[in-house]
């Protein structure tokens, strides 16, 4: 059913994140060897490494691309308590012939007092905005007011979550019916604050982010979180990687006119819960049309989940490792 092809990544240590650019022609990998590598897909369909450089003084946890409307821009976050923004500059013609490109650091964001665990760009309709979350429990939202000058970023919002944060996800919907919304997951084992997923919403009047919802039923540490692409639905779909795979449906409730100043109230329903990994689930991610959800867990497998039109069953394919085969066989 599936075929696999290997690329030797050449990192000197564990890879922690891989990110495709918007068009799927470039990819970035980051590693505990403190570097980021950028790969380009050639006309031959093969991947070539076009840049490799040291980005941080600690393990690099995540790397992510900005929308190409803003140019060729990457952001990375690291154990060294910083996040950084990188831009590709068009090099000398010699470099182009050799197939190499140069990335320079535009800014370092040093506000966090602890390891920065996730970095994500906000949806492009919000402008050029970067979000980080840290083990110190703070989500920080930065904005570059002049998109032509990537060295100027201002910290616009600091959201204190009271729990060590592990992951963030923006609601990709650009519909005017939904104000900007971000979900934050926590891997804190604190029992007092038991709801490990918080959802914050931007309020036009106060110009601040306010908590709209805490998913109280998610009490175990959360490792990854992902909003599904919206595709014209009126409700939101959120996938969570915790001790199992959970998919929530968030239905915005109609506002009464008296309450129009507060954040949207949601009706929260569980759409699905899969425990086939039988262990901790570490990553979840939607494909572009939100028809497939991929999850990976402690069992060393990546599972693909597909929602069927009957909405009550899901068929599943499984990808896993095997030992002992020759590389590339």
């Amino acid at each position, binding site marked *: 059913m599936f075929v696999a092809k290997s690329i030797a990544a050449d990192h000197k240590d564990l*890879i922690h994140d*891989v990110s495709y650019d918007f068009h799927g022609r470039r990819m970035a990998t980051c590693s505990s060897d403190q570097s980021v590598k950028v790969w380009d897909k050639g006309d031959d369909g093969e991947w070539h490494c076009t840049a490799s450089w040291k980005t941080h003084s600690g393990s690099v946890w995540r790397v992510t691309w900005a929308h*190409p409307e803003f140019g*060729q821009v990457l952001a990375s976050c690291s154990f060294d308590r910083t996040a950084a923004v990188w831009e590709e500059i068009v090099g000398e013609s010699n470099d182009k012939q050799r197939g190499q490109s140069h990335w320079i650091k535009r800014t370092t964001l040093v506000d966090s007092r602890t390891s920065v665990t996730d970095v994500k760009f906000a949806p492009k309709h919000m402008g050029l905005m970067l979000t980080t979350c840290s083990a110190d429990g703070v989500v920080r939202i930065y904005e570059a007011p002049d998109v032509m000058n990537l060295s100027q970023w201002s910290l616009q919002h600091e959201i204190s979550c009271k729990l060590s944060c592990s992951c963030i996800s923006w609601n990709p919907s650009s519909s005017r019916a939904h104000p900007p919304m971000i979900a934050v997951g926590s891997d804190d084992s604190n029992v007092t604050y038991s709801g490990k997923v918080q959802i914050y919403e931007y309020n036009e009047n106060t110009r601040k982010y306010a908590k709209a919802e805490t998913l109280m039923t998610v009490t175990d540490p959360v*490792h990854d979180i992902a909003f599904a692409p919206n595709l014209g639905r009126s409700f939101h779909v959120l996938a969570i990687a915790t001790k199992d795979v959970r998919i929530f449906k968030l239905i915005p409730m109609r506002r009464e006119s008296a309450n129009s100043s507060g954040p949207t109230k949601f009706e929260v329903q569980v759409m699905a819960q899969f425990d086939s990994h039988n262990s901790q689930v570490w990553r979840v991610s939607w494909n572009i*049309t939100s*028809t497939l959800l991929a999850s990976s867990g402690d069992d060393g497998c990546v599972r693909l989940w597909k929602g069927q039109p009957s909405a009550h069953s899901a068929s599943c394919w499984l*990808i896993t490792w095997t030992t002992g085969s020759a590389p590339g066989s």
Partner: protein
Amino acid sequence: MEEVDVEPSTTLIPGAGFHQKHLGFEWGPGDLLVYETNYKLQGPRSASSPSVHVVRRDEDICSPILRKLFNESHLIFVGLQKIKEDVPSKNKKSQFVSISKNYRSVIRACMEELQQNAVSTQEGSLASQYGDQVSILLAIELIWNLCEVLFIDAAPAGSLLLHLLDWVRLHKSDVDTRAREVLQSDSPAQHQSYWDVVISLVLQGRTDEARQVLSKQASLRAESSSVFKRMDVLLQNMPIFNPAGTQTLTEFDVKWRHWHEECDRCLQDNTFASNRHLETICKILVGDEDTLLEQRELLSTWYHFLVTRLLFTHPTIKPPDLHYYAQSSMNMFLGPRASPEPLDIILLSAFEFDLHQVIKDCSIALNNWWFVAHLTDLLDHCKLLQSHNLHFGSNLREFLVLEYASGLFTHHSLWQLAVDYFDHCPEFGRVYLELQIERVPLDTERKAIKVLRICEDRQMSEQVRSICKIMAKRALRNNRLGSALSWSIRAKDAAFATLISERFLQDYSNKGFFTDLDLLDNLGPAMLLSDRLTFLGKYREFHRLYGEKRFSEAARLLLSLMTAKIAPRSLWMTLLTDALPLLEQKEVIFSVDQTYELMSCLEELNLGTKDSNQTDQDEDIESTKTELLRLALARNLAMAIVKEGTIET
């Protein structure tokens, strides 16, 4: 807990070693990137250099021959969507049947080409790959054909069996080859396959052809010729229902029973006892199940067995009764030990008229959505999905078509076909298209324009803007200012246009000339997008007028740039310096009023705060320029006053 209704199939990824515990992944266009990692970060870590694996569904989209299938079926699909609703249903049925046949002929053409390639290729692995694809297409065509017979043509009792016979005949072509071989041999009756051929033909209900082959035998043996004549008569008399004829089904049934009784009598009388082959044939004609099962090898499939069994026991079978015979035929034929394959289950579901199950099983069994999407679409047009299952109807059709089209989108040229499919999905087609068309890699300008045209045709303004912005940004990065500017204009992005105009002007002051003159000279109303752009356009126009020696027009334009505040302050000095050659012409170009205006512009400039960063040298240059200008303006003023004061005689 959700039910997982199919056991997941496992794909094993060969790793270079099994050092890390976890798999990380990232979705890509049409594939998944998978890599070893460890999310827990405690415990031993390996020093080996890790790999990233690209995992892809093993899809036929990559095969050039199958691409033809996608292209041609796309045409049929689009044609089908255009069939008007108001045509009466009887005519529509024949239209749908013919469309179904079109699809099938496309499948067959593709199959034949693959088969040829499989035979002619040198490479072993490629040959087996082709072979696999041929088998899959064969199965697809078999299923489609059966669906056409049962659902689209929906033949009633009587015709149903005839259609099923056709279906079986079409998919068991080796009979013809063998028959030809036997007939063309020197002594057909002695051929080792002789009786196999006769029996095969009888099993398929091809009595005339069977008689033809039998006649070869009869001519040899004079003494047994009566037996052969008897068989010949039996075969000749076998009633075949004629749907176009005047005979009703009941009348046919009566006639058939008579004939059946006669065959039975022959058996009871041991008429054919002298020839075991003829005896076998007679038993077949009577529909003896054990005898039919003995012909397992010739029948080769349970559905052939089913149709033959029906032919000789129940030729007036009604559609609702099919499933009982289908199930029992499959059980009898396969026996207790063998288990049915996916294809068998699918065919059985079709005989049971369970459309939903057919579609579901096909979706799971096949690698590609092509088949289920097109078949379901056709069935939906025949209004068959609604009646079969209320939950689905056109939602199922749309879901499958969207899945298929989304898969096409990842391909570098087939994505254009996908657009038409999305267009015909009323509920989600547009939003799916908006989402996916943005992701088409804009490798070349031509491709970008193709994508743009699709978006513009559908008023997808946000996508248009975004694509143009991406192209403009890319052009700017590569210093292709003209391209960047034209993309910004197309994106209607005023801010970016301003930025690029400034770059143009910077370029001009560095190099002394304009680039991309074609573009700048033909801006037209687009110039109004941003102030800076307007200035750039007009400034270039000034230079053009000057070049064409239309001095007074040039002069007027230059002045208006300053007085109408189109020009930014920072560039006034440049403009005034540009005025110098006009001032120093022998002829007076600037009028008195115009000269006064120029003078006041110059003084306004000087009144502004001095730039503290200017070096002494710069200040010197500035003041020299100012002096020169004042002198030139004064001289021009004098000449202008004189000119205007002079009365022409």
